[in-house]
């Protein structure tokens, strides 16, 4: 009886019931399937594009890194660190200043080194004070030689007075020697690689023409004596 009443009800109002059910089903399909899937498709399209760009960038970076020559890179870095090292290089500086002084006709009577600025954000430096004797005519070329040396140094103060010996002046010179700590982080895989410009290559070539100073070359000593001392 119930079934017959329901059937009769449906047959009387099927013109409204059937499209109503279809409309409800359509809404459910749209709200729970079509709309979220379409949104996800659009979002994932962006993700796919980002992945494609990242892959392209990493491929190019990997190719560039693999094409670099280890020896060439190490040599360039060695030259550059000679010019602007990561730490104080007292031994190297003392030898270099002595060499420059001798080449320009000056004698160092006193040399003292003091620590300088420790601010890591700017170029760090320490000071070297030199007391010299030499000819006044040669002094301009001497200070030019110091400031144009491959090792980065700058004159910070000069005091000149005549010495007791005729024609010779006494000079008190303060030189600032620059260095800078190496960065603590060198970035990750996403860090873009820097390009070396023509200007950079010229600087490296200029530093390289001076070669590695004798004071910083490793000294090897030949073994002496008998190979077997009990013979």
């Amino acid at each position, binding site marked *: 009886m119930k079934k017959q009443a329901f059937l009769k009800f449906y047959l009387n109002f099927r013109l409204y019931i059937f499209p109503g059910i279809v409309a409800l089903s359509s809404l459910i399909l749209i709200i729970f399937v079509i709309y979220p899937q379409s949104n996800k498709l659009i979002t994932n399209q962006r993700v*796919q594009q980002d992945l494609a760009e990242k*892959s392209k960038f990493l*491929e190019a970076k990997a190719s560039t890194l693999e094409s670099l020559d280890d020896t060439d890179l190490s040599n360039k870095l060695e030259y550059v660190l000679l010019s602007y090292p990561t730490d104080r290089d007292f031994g190297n500086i003392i030898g270099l200043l002595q060499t420059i002084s001798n080449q320009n006709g000056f004698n160092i009577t006193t040399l003292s080194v003091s620590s300088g600025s420790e601010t890591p954000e700017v*170029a760090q430096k320490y000071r070297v004070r030199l007391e010299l004797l030499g000819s006044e005519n040669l002094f301009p070329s001497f200070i030019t030689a110091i400031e144009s040396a491959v090792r980065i140094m700058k004159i910070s*103060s000069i005091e000149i007075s005549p010495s007791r010996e005729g024609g010779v002046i006494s000079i008190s010179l303060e030189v600032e020697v620059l260095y800078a700590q190496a960065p603590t982080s*060198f970035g990750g*895989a996403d860090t873009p690689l820097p390009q070396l410009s023509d200007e950079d290559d010229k600087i490296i070539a*200029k530093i390289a023409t001076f070669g590695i100073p004798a004071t910083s070359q490793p000294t090897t000593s030949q073994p002496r004596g008998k190979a077997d001392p009990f013979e």
Partner: protein
Amino acid sequence: MEKISINLLPVEFTQEEVKKSKFYKVQAISISIILILIFLSILTISLRIFQSNRIKIAQLEVAEAENRVTSKSLRQAQLLLLKNRLSAIQNYLGVSSKQAEMYTLVHNLLPSALDISSVSVGREGGVLVSALATDANTLDRIFTDLLNKEKNENKISKVSIESLNRGRDGLYRVNFTVGPKK
């Protein structure tokens, strides 16, 4: 003679047929709509599955490329340090300090007739000169040259005479300071 047609069917039957016809039309449209929506649902789900696979492949490619880059991290560090140093060296190499520049400039402008007792260049670049001159013309020439913009390359801002006196020997003893342009 005209034909006469008489509809013997009851009115309710006709109405019932009209209702049926309407319903069949609505039914056809509804079924078409639901089939289209089902098709769209299947299409979007298939595209999502296809896209997910492509994203997985792209992620694998990215991971492989990242591994290649990470395996060369030492070279990357060397290159970054090299560039870091070169950028700094460019600012210093071949560039004279103000102190050296001022000394060289003043040294070149002072006449040979002037007997220089002492020269000192401070950390700010100011040059203090103590000298002996035989006549006032020499002194005049010194200060004129030092203040001449063409001769001093526009690098000197001022010249201050700290002291000037003339001794019994007729010599002029002068202490003067040359200030650099900032």
